[in-house]
């Protein structure tokens, strides 16, 4: 086995330098909860590893600015789960972070790592889709801002260039009237990869018609999916029983689940339908109640 070149960056600048050409391509290491598993048992042999964990001073903040919330890429799931700011203004993200793995994983795993790996089952990713979050990519030469809905373009394939680092993720603040829900369905109550996960944000207007609806769903396709067919069919409509039942074909068009060792396509379809419908029914119920 060839030795691995291991480099630890102490500042963002140094990290970007280490990733920039002409240096050969490197693997970024944040919390390592994915990378170490790939190396240990996934047959992954990186030639060079750049450890960015010392960048926490620069890249692990959670701040509100200009009606948006910016979350640093090196924020851990535990930090997101317990952040007072997130719990108040973006509880969806805090709740999803709290559902990741178990305490040791939540203490190491980061938001940037979740996005970097972009597993179809990644629990942060549906939230990014539902909140219309933007990923900030920085390289020595430029900064790019890419909405997550255009970030992941295939199975674990993203638009990130090898010289780029994810530095932060920017979330527009959801409308105060919006209902936001996180549903995670794993094989057991903790430490479980999602079989289906759904982040849902929506609101009805004063007439009771759907003002907006963003549903991010995971583990139901090669990538996390923004359910555009469902939204397209329902936005501007009343959520009558017929309208809700009528959305099932749109759900099927949005997702393309498969059988794998974790679950079955049939199960995933059923659960995706049921959860979307549950959310729509909750939306109606909350609107009626207020």
């Amino acid at each position, binding site marked *: 086995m060839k030795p691995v070149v291991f480099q630890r960056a102490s500042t963002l600048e140094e990290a970007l330098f280490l990733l920039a050409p002409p240096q050969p391509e490197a693997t970024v290491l944040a919390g390592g909860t994915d990378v170490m598993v790939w190396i240990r048992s996934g047959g992954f042999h990186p030639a060079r590893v750049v450890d960015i964990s010392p960048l926490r001073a620069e890249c692990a903040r959670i701040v509100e600015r200009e009606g948006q919330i910016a979350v640093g890429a090196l924020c851990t799931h535990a930090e997101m789960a317990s952040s007072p700011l997130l719990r108040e203004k973006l509880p969806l993200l805090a709740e999803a972070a709290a559902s990741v793995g178990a305490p040791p994983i939540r203490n190491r795993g980061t938001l940037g790592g979740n996005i970097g790996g972009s597993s179809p089952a990644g629990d942060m990713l549906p939230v990014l889709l539902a909140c219309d979050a933007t990923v900030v990519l920085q390289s020595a030469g430029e900064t790019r801002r890419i909405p997550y809905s255009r970030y992941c373009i295939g199975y674990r394939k993203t638009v990130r260039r090898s010289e780029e680092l994810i530095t932060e993720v920017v979330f527009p603040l959801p409308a105060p009237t919006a209902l936001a829900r996180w549903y995670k369905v794993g094989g*057991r109550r*903790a430490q479980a990869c999602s079989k289906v996960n759904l982040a849902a944000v929506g609101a009805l207007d004063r007439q009771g018609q759907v003002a907006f609806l963003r549903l991010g769903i995971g583990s139901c396709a090669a990538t996390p999916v923004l359910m555009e067919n469902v939204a397209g069919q329902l936005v501007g409509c009343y959520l009558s029983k017929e309208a809700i039942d009528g959305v099932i*074909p749109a759900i099927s068009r949005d997702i393309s689940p498969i059988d794998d060792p974790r679950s*079955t396509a*049939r199960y995933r379809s059923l659960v995706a339908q049921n959860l979307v419908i549950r959310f729509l029914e909750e939306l109606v119920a909350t609107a009626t109640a207020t």
Partner: protein
Amino acid sequence: MGFIGQSIPRTDGFGKVTGQATFVDDLCLPDMLFGATIRSDEPHARLERIEWDPDFDWSSIVRVDASDIPGRNAIFLEQWDQPALAQDVIRHHAEPVALIACADRELLETARKHVTLVTRPLDPLFDPEEALTSEIKIFGEDNLFKQIEIEKGDAPGAMKSAWRVVEGEYRFGYQEQMYIETQGVIAVPGEDGGVTVHGSMQCPYYVLKALTPLLGLPPEKVRIIQTTTGGAFGGKEEYPSMLAAHAVLLALKSGRPVKMVYDRAEDIAVTPKRHPGVIRHRTGVDREGHLLAQEVEILLDGGAYCTLSPVVLGRAAIAAGGPYRCDNLKVLARMVATNKPPSGAFRGFGGPQAAFGVERHMDRIAEEFGVSPLEIRRRNLLQIGDTTATGQQLKDSVGIGEVLEKVAEISDFENRHRAYQHQPAKERLRRGIGLAVCFHGGGFTGAGETWLASKVDLELTSRGGVSIHCGSVEMGQGRNTVFSQIAADALGIDLALVQTPPPDTATCPDSGPTAASRTTMVVGRLVSDAAENLLARMTELLAQQAGVQLDAIHYGQGAFHWEGQDLPFGEAALQLHESCGLVRARAQFVDRDGMVWDPQTYRGDAYAAYSWAAIATEVELDMDTCMPRITRVVAAEDIGKAINPLSVEGQIQGGTLQGLGYGALEEVKMENGRFVNYRMTDCLIPTAMDVPDMEVVIVERPYQHGPAGAKGLGELPTDLPAPALAAAISQAAGFRFDEIPVTPERIAARLTQGKEGA
């Protein structure tokens, strides 16, 4: 006075919790090599040859294949069929074929890729239902490892006079033991040509008996020492013999110590699991719901080699009819061979499969009768004076009625069961409750204990205490603590004076395998007997030294008394250790129950004592996700005597959780003879977050020959949660589930059956 019955903290607990305990992977010896196993990639093939890449530098690597085996190439247990290294034929995926060892672990991994097995594929046999008639022969002429027939009364005849005959088929999958410490050993070659093995294991003497013929060495040249064992659950009953064989072959060839510790993926992919299979019931019932006749067919999938499968089958056959009175019973049980990794021992040992079949079937009978699951069981439970399937008459220590009534009362079973029958159909959260009862015989079956002739030694230590020597291991179940309590009470001394060194075959007699719920009940009794023998021996020596008659000395209150003298045990022990050197006393098993057993017909006294259990489980099923949440479990278990109530409760909670996992969560999936979810990410077991609210009731109907009345406990709690959970989920879902695990995927498939687009 008296430690028995007290919740003494585990004597091994502190060291384990603080990280001081030394597991095999913590041991490092000078010049040690690491071993690795080259395995087949096919389920069935002819092995033509092993190709060692000629362009690779093998100089620092030790290589072993079947031709290096000095003795007989077999891991002896029940049969000689399983080779240590495959030769000529490969019979299952991941079968060991060759071994390599090297001081550098990375190089070892690289070397592994330079070995090629040249094979010619053979048609594989996967379906156990086809095994008997298949053209593919894996074991003998008919792929039958073992067939057991039990006949009591005239079942076919009685079936004719039944008011109704109820039939059912029940299926169950693999279950992985998932001990927290994976399998591991270190083999150390001796200067005398012998070998010492340190390892994580349940049965040091099984390893010894497997290694001596393999190596062609006399037993005194093979020494087995158990290291701290991080869980086993049956999974370290047979497999450590295989792993030890591999490490020893490498150690003998290299002349250096060799460590082999599996990583989790290898451990799950290759070690034996609970037998999957199917059980079919046909039961004739009279108008009052009494069982008139039971016909049971059991088919278990043994995989490619025999391992302990015949014994597992025996347990399943004896328990097949459940703890019910029935004068006419016929059991046909078969263990067949397939081209899969061998199945093997797992806590419960055939019991969970049998209980799943009969308990789900009792629910079906109750349904057909329109009576509650509780009522059908009440009407048929065994009582003192009744005979079991094997014709054994129950004379005492039968707590089944009591455990059932306790569970029924605490769980409010009847009311809840009725209420859940009438819950609204459209609710998102639906509820259900299920019930199960079972029995588990303690110790080896029939004459097994007599045949084992277990021995325990007690020895005076240089510190004025005693140490207990025997082959039974501590594996997390509490053996050290329980043995200490028994010995301390038998000697009337403080717990701190009792030592429990780990088994070492050079210094400890064989007390039989640590299995079959026998360690407290059978070996614990021997500890107490050995203590008595030790006191007698000490009295004899003291009488000699004091020049008095033997009967002038009596022992009481922790001291020897004679002619106005009081010599406390500790002082006597020191004095004798000083003056006489080694003072040891032995106890050997004797059958005090007058067991009569015919292994051919399976008639007679199958077990000296049975433990009894009942459980109720309640679930809330989310109809959107098909995920059941277990909201409450009530378990009552009659184990004779709780030597350590805290430990007992822990065993019951842990065993129950394992049984719940078996029922609705744990699934080892197989494709083309290989396990596909061989990582903990996908091979799920319950976590602490999945533990339901659990109420445990301990019932004590003593067994007169157990230590302080204790019976078997280890396996009992694992036997019965699965059928109760399947019943609860069935009630909640409104569909009957007769196959475990009842996963959300299975529930979803049922709910959407016939519906398109889902």
